[in-house]
């Protein structure tokens, strides 16, 4: 049986390799997903054909020959019933284990991934590289490097879908979702929104450009003259007057932000929280929900004053302050 499945899936995958039948496979996980897909296709065809042909044979062989024909009485056959209950159960169990382990493997990004930020809004994709380059409906990524996307939405639920990479994830307002991939083939691929989001849902698409690492570097530096996310974040930080309370030496009315990222802080409620992206976002938009233990709850909310993109830039800036401290400690 297993040999048959193996043969079938190999045969099928060679058939499906034909253009028009198989989408481009351009990421590290695509082959694994497709392999499962072929085996599933094989199982589907096997059973469909088996059932169809059995029916066909029975229909011909046992067609009614006389109007008063009385066929034999066959009631039940317990071994047969058990067989066709247990065999599908085993097949399903196997498929479940395979699919789930593959999924878990695929959803765990390698730790040294490049981070790119994605904001969905009706009806465009807004993409920002940490180096400061911004793109709309285009995503340039280097080949062979794991890339992690951190995504959120400004309005309704969208879905970031790159068929050639076999990755898809809903982009949800009010929280961050993430996605990772490692492109394996230089080329240009479709980017779709796969969750219905209103009038121009079908036009919320773009292109993913996979470039060789060298080309990518050139593209990054020659691309747009804009500055890094941290830098922009710092400007917003100063413009909004954040620095008047959050002074780097800790003498302000609010806590110093130097070195806070990645640490645990104790809240007023006594609860301990890790300062991560989600925490910083919450602190900006709903500050009183995360007031630290030794500080007064005086920070105003910035909800409505800055958009998701600026939140991400501020986060990038606060994160950069963490490494600053590490650097200065190192010296």
């Amino acid at each position, binding site marked *: 049986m297993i040999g048959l499945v193996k043969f079938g899936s190999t045969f099928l995958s060679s058939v499906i390799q034909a253009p028009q039948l198989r989408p481009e496979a351009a990421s590290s996980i695509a082959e694994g997903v497709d392999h499962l897909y072929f085996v599933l296709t094989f199982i589907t065809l096997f059973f469909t054909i088996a059932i169809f042909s059995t029916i066909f044979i029975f229909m011909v062989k046992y067609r009614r020959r006389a109007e008063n024909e009385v066929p034999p009485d066959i009631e039940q056959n317990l071994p047969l019933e058990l067989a066709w209950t247990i065999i599908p159960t085993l097949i399903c169990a196997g498929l479940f284990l395979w699919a789930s382990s593959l999924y878990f493997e695929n959803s765990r990004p390698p730790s040294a991934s490049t981070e790119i930020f994605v904001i969905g809004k009706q009806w465009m994709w807004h993409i920002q590289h940490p180096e400061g380059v911004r793109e709309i409906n285009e995503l340039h990524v280097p080949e062979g490097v794991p890339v992690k996307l951190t995504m959120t939405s400004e309005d309704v639920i969208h879905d970031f879908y790159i068929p050639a990479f076999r990755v898809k994830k809903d982009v949800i307002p009010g929280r961050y979702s993430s996605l990772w991939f490692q492109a394996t083939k230089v080329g240009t691929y479709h980017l779709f929104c796969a969750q219905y989001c209103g009038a121009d849902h079908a036009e919320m698409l773009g292109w993913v450009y996979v470039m060789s690492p060298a080309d990518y570097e050139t593209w990054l530096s020659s691309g747009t003259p804009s500055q890094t996310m941290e830098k922009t974040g710092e400007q917003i930080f100063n413009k909004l007057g954040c620095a008047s309370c959050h002074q780097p030496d800790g003498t302000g009315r609010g806590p110093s932000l130097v070195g806070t990222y990645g640490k645990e802080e104790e809240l*007023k409620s006594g609860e301990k929280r890790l300062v991560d992206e989600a925490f910083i976002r919450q602190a900006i938009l*709903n500050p*009183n*929900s995360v*007031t630290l233990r030794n500080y007064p709850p005086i920070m105003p909310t910035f909800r409505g004053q800055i958009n998701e993109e600026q939140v991400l830039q501020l986060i990038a800036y606060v994160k950069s302050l963490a490494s600053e401290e590490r650097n200065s400690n190192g010296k």
Partner: protein
Amino acid sequence: MEQQREAGSLGMWVFLLTELMFFGGLFASYIIYRALYLPSFEIGSHLLEVKFGALNTAVLIGSSLTMALAIRSAQVGRRGAQVGFLIATMILGAAFLFFKFTFEWHHDYIEHLVPGFGFVIRPEWGAAGAHVPMFFCFYFFMTGLHALHMIIGLGILTVLTVMAHRGRFNPPYYSPLEVSGLYWHFVDIVWIFLFPLLYLIGGRYIGGGH
């Protein structure tokens, strides 16, 4: 006749299953948001008056008792008692609604605690204040839906009282009374759960919750 009565009672039980899932969707959402925003829900809960909740619980339990006794009177064929107990049930039911609307809802309205109708988030609630309206939203929706069931129940009881007065129920035939009784008790049970979930959540002791 016997088959018909059993069908009626089974039908009502099936209907109550539907009702259970109807309230169930609401209870499930409430449980989830309570888990998410416990401090806010505790603040909201503490703004409700336990004494009215407890009083109304007692009133409703009393009405369940009189309803059960009304059915019993039909079973043993006492017409006067039937009518008396039915009227008592209606009075208790109406009292429940009266307390609910005048002492609680009206009071909440004056205190600006009705979402969508001038809700004011008070500064002393601090950070948790943001989600207090959600508690009140659930509070009004759940008690409102319950009150709607009570009002429907009162309508049914009125019809039953008239029928009982005319002597329509007797020991072999009292199916409408029995079936309506099931409904009335179910509404009572919903309140038995609403009372602790809404009023007693997180404790009432000093500093309870925070």
